[in-house]
């Protein structure tokens, strides 16, 4: 098991398979929230389902809509399990707080380069400091 410590997190302790890309995240810009897939053609995860996955991405992008959309996605059950980002913006934090969504950010390495795509990972927002653990590689 490898553990990566982070600066900040909210939510709980969540396990799932990682979906990893060196790209950004915005619920409005990047997702088809009806079908649960990345829909922006230029996104590195275009066409892939995010439902139930732990998204490991670079930075929060886009506008303010994600602050509502995480709650709306949660209510319909078409949502990722958690989000791990190198860098957040306030919108992502506000959205996670409203939706009771698990999110972690601010690693001392580029998290998108050290977590293998598809690996079983655990985001532990309750740990001090919060961390992301790689439990098993693909």
């Amino acid at each position, binding site marked *: 098991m490898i553990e990566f410590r982070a600066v900040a997190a909210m939510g709980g302790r969540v396990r799932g398979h990682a979906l990893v890309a060196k790209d950004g995240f915005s619920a409005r810009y990047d997702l088809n929230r009806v079908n649960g897939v990345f829909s922006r053609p230029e996104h590195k995860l275009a066409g892939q389902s995010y439902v139930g996955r732990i998204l490991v991405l670079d930075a929060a992008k886009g506008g303010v809509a*994600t602050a509502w959309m995480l709650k709306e996605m949660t209510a*319909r059950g078409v949502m990722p399990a958690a989000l791990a980002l190198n860098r957040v913006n*306030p919108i992502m934090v506000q959205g996670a707080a409203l939706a009771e969504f698990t999110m972690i950010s601010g690693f001392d390495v580029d998290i998108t380069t050290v977590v293998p795509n598809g690996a079983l990972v655990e985001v532990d927002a309750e740990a001090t400091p919060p961390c992301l653990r790689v439990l098993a590689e693909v």
Partner: protein
Amino acid sequence: MLAGKAGPARQWAIDHQIRVGRYLGAADFVPVSQAHIMADTESLGVSGVEWLERLAALPEHERRVRIPTITDPRGTDFAAAARLKHQEWMLALERRVITAFEALGVLMTDTCINYQTIMPAVFGEHMAYGDTGVVIYSNSVLGARSNFEGGPSALAAALTGRTPRYGYHLPERRRASLLLRIDHTPHELHDWGALGGIIGRIAGDYWQVPALVGIDRVPTSDELKHFGAALASYGSVALFHMVGITPEAEHAVDRSLTVKAAITEADVRTFQAAYRAGVDKVDVVVFSAPQLSLMELRELAAMLDGRRATIPMLVVTSPQVKPDADRFGLTARIEAAGGLVLSGMCFYQSYAREMAEANGWQTLATSSAKLVNILGGYGYRPVLLSMRECVDAACSGRIG
């Protein structure tokens, strides 16, 4: 408030703000004098609407906002909903949100250009603004202090009258982190948008503050509007400085910063050409994002005189500008040429995916760089053109 003595709405609000503030390192709160809420129903969904309605059902003294609070564009223009093929369930959700916000004491301004029309921020004034275009313009051009406040957080600030003091409320966060040399000052609005998009891609995240040197004239409010909206959209950037132009640039740009990149006219043309490549036929032309000013409407009306659109051409403005456009005959001239002038909505906040499916729209031409950045994810093939090229596309149905 946290103990619930001011009621559950303010209890939720202060708890939400504490959680957000802790995550982002806020030491305390700062009073804010206005809030601006983005809350279109595509973003809210049914669950978000029901959540707002629960707040709206509280006793009046528990639910009313404490500071002037206004709204971003709504998800439809009720007067034109049938022509847009918005469905009844969308309109019903919109009506429910409006009723809820009015019960909370929110002014339904429905605009993303409040800095041009309602009450612009004063230098140094702390705000809780939603809509990234509003934040970046107010921070950079007017010297206001605001972070991106999504709908829930803007509402929380409206209920408590304060916001966590982090990010761009702090003087030290407002210093330039990235210096760029601009070798070509844009001429047209879509060029300013392209420049914003290029710099947004370079900046890459919310915590970068780009500073520009080389802009050789004072841009207009509309030019800075398109530049800022695109920079915020592509880069999630909330503050920029233009040396010699914006009010904080003189003191916010350290001499030790070195130029990271020079941006030329060729870069702007390459950025625009990438969206245009391989596109011939256009299904719809949209002027929106941000809502058009009176000056943009005047320019568009002049370009359309004596011409006739052969495909749908949507022209979106604010409820504050629309009456003047009507009064000055601009609406009539645009609609005589086949356009549809819409008020109080914004294209991408108005069920863009459902409009595409219902109307058979795929290729969309616009002068808004922000709009082309957003709409790819909604299934459109967006093309960035000048206002005049958009008019030509609307009249011929083709590009070039």
